[in-house]
């Protein structure tokens, strides 16, 4: 009931209106990625009356959020002739010309019909400046000061979905590991924008390789203390952590399959093999094994493909298993040390780290063409890449400027650091609540 109420409060509802519905699409997946110029009109509570309370704060958070989108360029308000404080929030009182002249493709208006102090509704709209067509419009009722980050995230997710077809980035939470000395690391959560940082485990020993369940309820991880390895399981519903032991010596690199089961490398004779566990974390069957090291499973969203690291040809390399036919093919063909594969949820790309003479670097391989591209170039060592549910953003750990978590995309480009307040490793994307809008 509480969840439903929150959804009603923050989810907002679409605004109907007379303006033309536009259908602008931004292709972020193809090789020639578009750049979108977006202007944020000043938030208003009436004609040419700027909302300087919650309105200004919300504007600031939205601006910070949008700065994480590498394909979006925010228009400098000073470049808008006549300024960004508008007479109206929608046509016909909305003057598109000034934004066209400033080079903006999209203008976002924010209207606080009852003022912007206390608990008030806010309406946010986005228009294409050339056609005047509305891309998006939603009212978020009962917004108070503490709700502003949540409202900003929901709006940005909605806008991103409108433009690209997927708003997962702003709905995601990263699980990661934060070190606190030798053999001491715990699991934390943070939004990719750096907000809502919190610790979810507090156990002596080393936690590694956190992974979200697709429904966003569990985070599993490897836990190593002085005596043993175990599978750690954090339950979002209860906030409790279980430590599950298995026969043998290793519990390495757990990952969820799309049907909420866990695959993890466990001991089985001389070599670690990849086991599938059932819904109560008991061994169900072997997914991949043999007389070599097999670790770090990762799945696409259909659950039919599994990439993993194997030493079957000497040094560690990335392989792909078709779980239907059982056939295994080698993915990484260059370099002698390729590990930490992560399949894009859409199954089109695999990202992995390669040891080079300058440290580890991250590479992406197109699963259709076999083409491989390097997407990070240091400095330091870039490791543990992980795809967002949108198959576009990639988080990775890097030693550039201390151990931290950075964001890039399937195309590479400038990496942006996620503020984590300390040495951070093993970023893994998740959609708490299953990514419900």
């Amino acid at each position: 009931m509480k969840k439903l109420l929150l959804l009603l409060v923050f989810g907002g509802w679409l605004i109907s209106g007379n303006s033309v519905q536009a259908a602008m699409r931004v292709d972020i997946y193809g090789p020639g990625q578009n750049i979108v110029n977006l202007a944020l009109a000043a938030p208003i509570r009436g004609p040419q009356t700027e909302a300087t309370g919650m309105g200004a704060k919300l504007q600031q958070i939205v601006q910070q959020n949008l700065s994480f989108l590498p394909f979006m360029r925010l228009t400098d308000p000073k470049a808008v002739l006549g300024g960004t404080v508008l007479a109206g929030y929608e046509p016909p009182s909305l003057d598109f010309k000034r934004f066209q002249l400033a080079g903006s493709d999209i203008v976002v208006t924010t209207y606080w019909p009852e003022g912007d102090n206390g608990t008030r509704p806010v309406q946010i709209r986005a228009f294409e400046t050339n056609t005047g067509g509305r891309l998006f419009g939603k009212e978020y009722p009962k917004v108070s000061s503490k709700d502003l980050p949540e409202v900003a995230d929901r709006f940005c997710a909605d806008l991103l979905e409108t433009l690209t077809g997927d708003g997962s980035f702003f709905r995601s939470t990263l699980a990661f590991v934060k070190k606190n000395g030798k053999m001491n690391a715990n699991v934390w959560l943070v939004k990719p924008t750096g907000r809502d940082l919190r610790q979810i485990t507090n156990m002596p020993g080393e936690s590694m390789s956190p992974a979200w369940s697709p429904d966003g309820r569990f985070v599993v991880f490897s836990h190593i203390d002085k005596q043993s390895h175990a599978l750690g399981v954090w339950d979002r519903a209860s906030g409790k952590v279980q430590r599950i032991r298995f026969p043998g010596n290793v519990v390495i690199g757990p990952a969820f399959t799309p049907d909420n089961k866990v695959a993890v490398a466990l001991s089985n004779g001389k070599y670690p093999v990849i086991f599938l566990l059932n819904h109560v974390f008991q061994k169900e069957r072997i997914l991949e094994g043999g007389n070599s090291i097999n670790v770090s499973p990762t799945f696409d969203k259909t659950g039919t493909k599994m990439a993993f690291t194997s030493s079957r040809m000497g040094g560690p390399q990335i392989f792909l298993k078709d779980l239907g036919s059982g056939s295994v093919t080698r993915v990484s063909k260059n370099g002698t040390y390729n590990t930490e594969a992560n399949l894009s949820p859409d199954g089109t790309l695999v990202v992995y780290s390669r040891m080079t003479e300058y440290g580890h670097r991250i590479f992406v391989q197109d699963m259709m063409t076999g083409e491989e591209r390097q997407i990070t170039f240091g400095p330091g060592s870039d490791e543990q890449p992980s795809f967002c549910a949108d198959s576009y953003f990639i988080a990775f750990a890097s030693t550039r400027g201390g151990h931290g978590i950075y964001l890039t995309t399937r195309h590479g480009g400038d990496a942006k650091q996620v503020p984590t307040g300390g040495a951070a490793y093993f970023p893994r994307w998740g959609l708490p609540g299953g990514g419900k809008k």
Partner: protein
Amino acid sequence: MKRYALILTLVMALAAGFGCAKKTTSEPAYDDGMTPEMRAAIEQITDARVYFAFDKFNIQPEYKDMLKTKADLLKKYSSIRVRIEGNCDERGTQEYNLALGERRARASYEYLVTLGVNPGQLEMISYGKENPAVQGSGEAAWSKNRRDDFRVIAH
């Protein structure tokens, strides 16, 4: 009040008594029931490490005599239990290194068992690259971190 004073006096007398007893013991710090020979055996088992080449887990010939000595001591002192801890240098990645560390620990384990050590005296763990013996980068540090440690966990 009188009762508390009596208890306090008794406690102090007991503490003083224990203090005097320790002073008369020849090896006060090691009064753990071990003979000097067993203590020397434990030191021999734990002090010498097995080192590995990069991304390898085979026992190199120069460590076979050392493992033979450990095996002889473990067979002689069957109450000693040892945890073999496999470790890696910082260059590899964490998950693969956990598996590699396990293979290193297993290599020593299997060698010792082949030499007749009771498997019940041994256990294994991999710390990957999380427990370096030496801090720093460069082959001098790396070569000291690609290792098996032998820790006595019971005797």
